[in-house]
């Protein structure tokens, strides 16, 4: 209750502020009048009496302040007064205010955006009930791939999880009645929704008891988004039968709106029971492409470390029981949501956060020196206030309030901008063909962090002029004027400027390193030539083909492509061509002399590609030795393979001797190497040289293939002809076409994101250093106008005047840039892991940074230099 009364009193006082003020003022005046009356009576004249009375009264201003304080509730009241005063002061120097607010808006905006990404991708768990308890398993090679058989054993044998679910990607053709189209969803175990503790939005979910062996549960749950876009929110959709890859499935429910599966940046269209995956995939213990991730909820009281030990114990048991098929070394657990992408994403976002923090620090240094300059310009005002009896703490408080007012204004502006940007980002679909989203809608945490950053930075730069104020000697300053001391020695401002320029140089260096790395990547040798090449994805499985009909149909497709005028070479590759969707499969291989084909004897795990004769020509992968496949390498001929240079070096001693040698597959088949091709990039452009083997498609048929069609001109012009050529063979084919270059986007995505974000940060750093140098140069010129004017009047050459005015600024710039360049190079080592071929020891980068910093310096000092040169000494001397 007392609290309430306090606030009521406060509010009353706030609204009757001026009345209270008048009250105090009037009472003090009345006192002085009474005293003067007494003095007058003792014989003084009225004017003298009033003067004496005022002197006797003491520090009028101070006592008035103390009276206000005695009135209580003054913290907020003083704050309001300070804020009002600050706004008045800031309105008087709009240039300073605008520069300061904009600088902070940029810096805080950048931090809010990066934090929003951090929050969306790393800090915030999946949008499911009690997401904290969910952990996914990861294996030694940094991914969660697992065979279905292993998953079943893990599910039944572990003692740490309250239910263990699994899921895999499912790319299918979905036909609702005459309009087949592609859809991307999850194949999930029956207990998936139960482990997640989800409730359906419509209809029902499927459960473990619905699974009775292969293809036993033809049910489909739609995601809310897909239900909205494909079925127009039709509530009657539950119970409808649709065709997935030509097989009937019943839609039984719709997932709730906020739920987008268990991988943060993917939004699946649907969920189907995992038992509907191909039997060949589901039954083989060695097929690690059956399950993308196994995850579950830890039992209460079980720590992640205990669970890891438990999972590894099951793994050890499986390895002993199935030495041939079980190859995993050890597992670890990580919170569900990012799976194996977690580590690089986390590292990258943390790196960005660090750089954004540097931006903010640079901005604070920038504003700190601006503020110190501003304060020293106001030293006369400060001195007067001190002389009138205001306390130093009161003045400091007011200056800090000013800083915080600026930082809050900047923070608000920056937050507005970042919310808009984050909104755009979360709507963004980087790849039209893949269901990938960036879930970064800002929430309360983002707002709070932005507010905290604004306050902290306000205090940071507001504190810079403190020493200056504390040292102020009112009598000196009032007597001599503020221009008296512009020393030669190193000031806090100089240090701040050097710090700021160094930070900016770090940012400029890292952005240049990243951009240069990306440029190199685009022109580096990938082991194939993506230009002028069209990729046609044809999934014959979706069209109902299987067995021997697959290679027959694929051969006819190849021939159909060859007859199109303008087409140069045609080939075929299974699953995904190199660097497309960052997807690929590996297989275990053994040396020919190995007889015990257990996991410990595996000689290598090369990438496995199944290709047609002519693929190497179409991809422009050069043959180093031996021969390409022929149409005679079919199922009646002995198994053969073409390997890359890394494979040959690892298993077959040398490229020259490779042709004709043998190696063994997991199932014991002896394969003869008939040719060797150059190395290439397969999963990502940053990977080290990896072994790869290529098998003839007539010996290892696959339903999901890409046709590689190289043409003499822009392949887009031929796309229509290609599509109609294939439709003539079978009108029910689901086609997806794109140039190889456009499909490289996914593989290049990390580098691109890195280059773009670092580029943006670099530009911000450059802008900050411009304002910083400009502020410093302009200030030093304005402080020394008189001196420079005298020099000019005495006939000093312009060069000397310029040197006097700006030499210091340039020296600081050079010093800061050098420090920043060195730091930036050290920092760029980190970049090398994300941006391929990002090396700081690149003369072009070095020259670029030096040139950039130099031109920034010139740009920033241009106006102050003009001002120094256009001084009119006569006018200046007359003014003082």
């Amino acid at each position, binding site marked *: 209750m007392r609290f309430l009364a306090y606030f009521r009193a406060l509010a009353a006082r706030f609204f009757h502020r001026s009345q209270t003020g008048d009250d105090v003022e009037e009472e003090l005046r*009345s*006192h002085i009048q009474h005293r003067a009356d007494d003095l007058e009576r003792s014989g003084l004249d009225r004017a003298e009496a009033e003067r004496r009375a005022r002197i006797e009264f*003491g520090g009028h201003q101070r006592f008035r302040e103390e009276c206000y304080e005695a009135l209580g509730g003054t913290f907020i009241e003083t704050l309001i007064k300070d804020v009002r005063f600050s706004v008045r002061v800031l309105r008087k120097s709009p240039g300073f205010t605008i520069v300061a607010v904009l600088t902070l808006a940029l810096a805080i905006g950048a931090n809010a955006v990066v934090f929003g990404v951090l929050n969306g991708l790393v800090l915030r768990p999946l949008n499911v009930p009690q997401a904290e308890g969910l952990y996914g398993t990861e294996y030694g090679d940094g991914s969660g791939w697992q065979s279905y058989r292993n998953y079943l054993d893990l599910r039944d044998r572990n003692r740490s999880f309250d239910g263990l679910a699994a899921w895999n990607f499912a790319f299918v053709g979905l036909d609702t009645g005459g309009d087949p189209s592609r859809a991307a969803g999850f194949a999930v175990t029956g207990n998936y929704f139960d482990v997640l503790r989800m409730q359906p939005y419509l209809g029902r979910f499927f459960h473990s008891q619905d699974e009775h062996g292969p293809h036993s549960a033809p049910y489909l749950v739609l995601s809310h988004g897909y239900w909205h876009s494909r079925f127009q929110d039709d509530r009657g959709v539950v119970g409808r039968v649709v065709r997935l890859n030509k097989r009937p499935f019943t839609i039984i429910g719709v997932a709730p709106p906020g739920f987008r599966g268990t991988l943060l940046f993917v939004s699946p269209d649907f969920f189907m029971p995992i038992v509907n995956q191909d039997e060949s995939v589901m039954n083989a213990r060695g097929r690690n492409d059956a399950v993308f991730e196994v995850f579950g909820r830890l039992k209460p009281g079980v720590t992640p470390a205990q669970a890891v030990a438990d999972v590894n114990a099951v793994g050890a048991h499986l390895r002993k029981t199935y030495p041939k098929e079980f190859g995993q070394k050890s597992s670890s657990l990580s919170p569900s949501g990012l799976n194996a992408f977690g580590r690089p994403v986390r590292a990258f976002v943390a790196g960005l956060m660090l750089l954004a923090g540097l931006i903010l620090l640079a901005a604070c240094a920038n504003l700190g020196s601006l503020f110190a300059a501003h304060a020293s310009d106001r030293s006369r005002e400060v001195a007067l206030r001190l002389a009138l009896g205001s306390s130093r703490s009161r003045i400091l408080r007011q200056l800090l309030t000013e800083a915080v007012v600026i930082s809050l204004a900047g923070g608000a502006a920056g937050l507005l901008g970042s919310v808009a940007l984050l909104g755009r980002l979360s709507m963004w679909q980087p790849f039209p063909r893949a269901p990938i989203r960036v879930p970064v809608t800002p929430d309360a945490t983002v707002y709070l962090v932005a507010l905290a950053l604004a306050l902290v930075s306000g205090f940071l730069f507001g504190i810079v002029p403190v020493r200056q104020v504390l040292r102020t000697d009112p009598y000196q300053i009032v007597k001599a004027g503020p221009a008296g001391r512009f020393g030669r020695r190193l000031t806090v401002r100089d240090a701040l400027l050097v710090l700021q320029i160094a930070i900016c140089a770090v940012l400029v260096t890292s952005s240049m390193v990243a951009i240069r790395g990306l440029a190199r990547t685009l022109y580096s040798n990938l082991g194939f030539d993506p230009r002028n090449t069209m990729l046609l994805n044809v999934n014959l499985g979706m069209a109902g083909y299987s067995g021997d009909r697959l290679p027959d149909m694929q051969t006819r497709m190849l021939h159909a492509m060859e007859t199109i005028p303008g087409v140069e070479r045609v080939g075929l590759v299974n699953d995904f061509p190199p660097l497309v969707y960052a997807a690929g499969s590996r297989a275990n291989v053994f040396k020919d002399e190995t007889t015990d084909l257990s996991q410990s004897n595996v000689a290598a795990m090369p990438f496995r590609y199944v290709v047609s004769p002519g693929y190497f020509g179409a991809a422009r992968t050069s043959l180093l030795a031996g021969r390409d496949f022929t149409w005679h390498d079919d199922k009646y001929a002995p198994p053969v393979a073409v390997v890359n240079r890394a494979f040959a070096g690892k298993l077959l001693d040398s490229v020259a001797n490779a042709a004709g040698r043998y190696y063994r597959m997991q199932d014991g088949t002896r394969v003869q190497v008939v040719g060797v091709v150059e190395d290439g990039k397969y999963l990502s452009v940053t990977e080290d040289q990896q072994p790869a083997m290529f098998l003839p498609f007539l010996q290892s048929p696959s339903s999901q293939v890409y046709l590689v069609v190289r043409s003499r001109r822009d392949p887009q012009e031929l796309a229509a002809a290609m599509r109609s050529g294939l439709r003539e063979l079978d009108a029910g084919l689901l086609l997806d076409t794109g140039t190889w270059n456009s499909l490289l986007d996914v593989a290049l995505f990390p580098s691109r994101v890195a280059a773009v974000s670092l580029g943006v940060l670099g530009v911000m750093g450059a802008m900050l250093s411009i304002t910083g140098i400009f502020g410093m140069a302009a200030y030093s010129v304005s402080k020394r106008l008189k001196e420079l004017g005298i020099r000019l009047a005495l006939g000093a050459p312009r060069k000397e005047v310029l040197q006097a005015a700006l030499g210091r600024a340039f020296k600081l710039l050079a010093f800061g840039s050098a420090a920043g360049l060195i730091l930036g190079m050290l920092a760029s080592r980190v970049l090398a892991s994300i941006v391929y071929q990002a090396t700081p020891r690149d003369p072009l980068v070095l020259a670029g940074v030096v040139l950039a910093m130099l031109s920034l310096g010139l740009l920033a000092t241009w106006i102050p230099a003009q001002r120094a040169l256009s001084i009119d000494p006569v006018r200046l001397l007359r003014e003082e």
Partner: protein
Amino acid sequence: MPGEAQLLPGTLDLLILKAVSLGPLHGYGVLLRIGQISDSALLIEQGALYPALFRLVRQGLLKASWGTSENNRRAKFYELTASGRKRLREETDGWNRLATAIASALAAEPEGL
């Protein structure tokens, strides 16, 4: 002036209460009254009086109202409230006890121990 003494911290409030207890006074009047009852022995900085007055009003020990002074000027008059009167009594007792104690402590002679 040899007869002047520095005020001990906290005693200004007590003096003000005492001065006002003798009849309603405006600020300048409080100052004069203190001078008068202490035989000009206690020196108070004039401006320092007002923060103390505001504090006492806020604590509810004094109440203030505007009126006209003997010089025919507008002035704010202070008078004691009931709780002010009570506080004055307590503080006076407390002060007397303290003063007696200190006085007897200072008057102690070696042979008295």
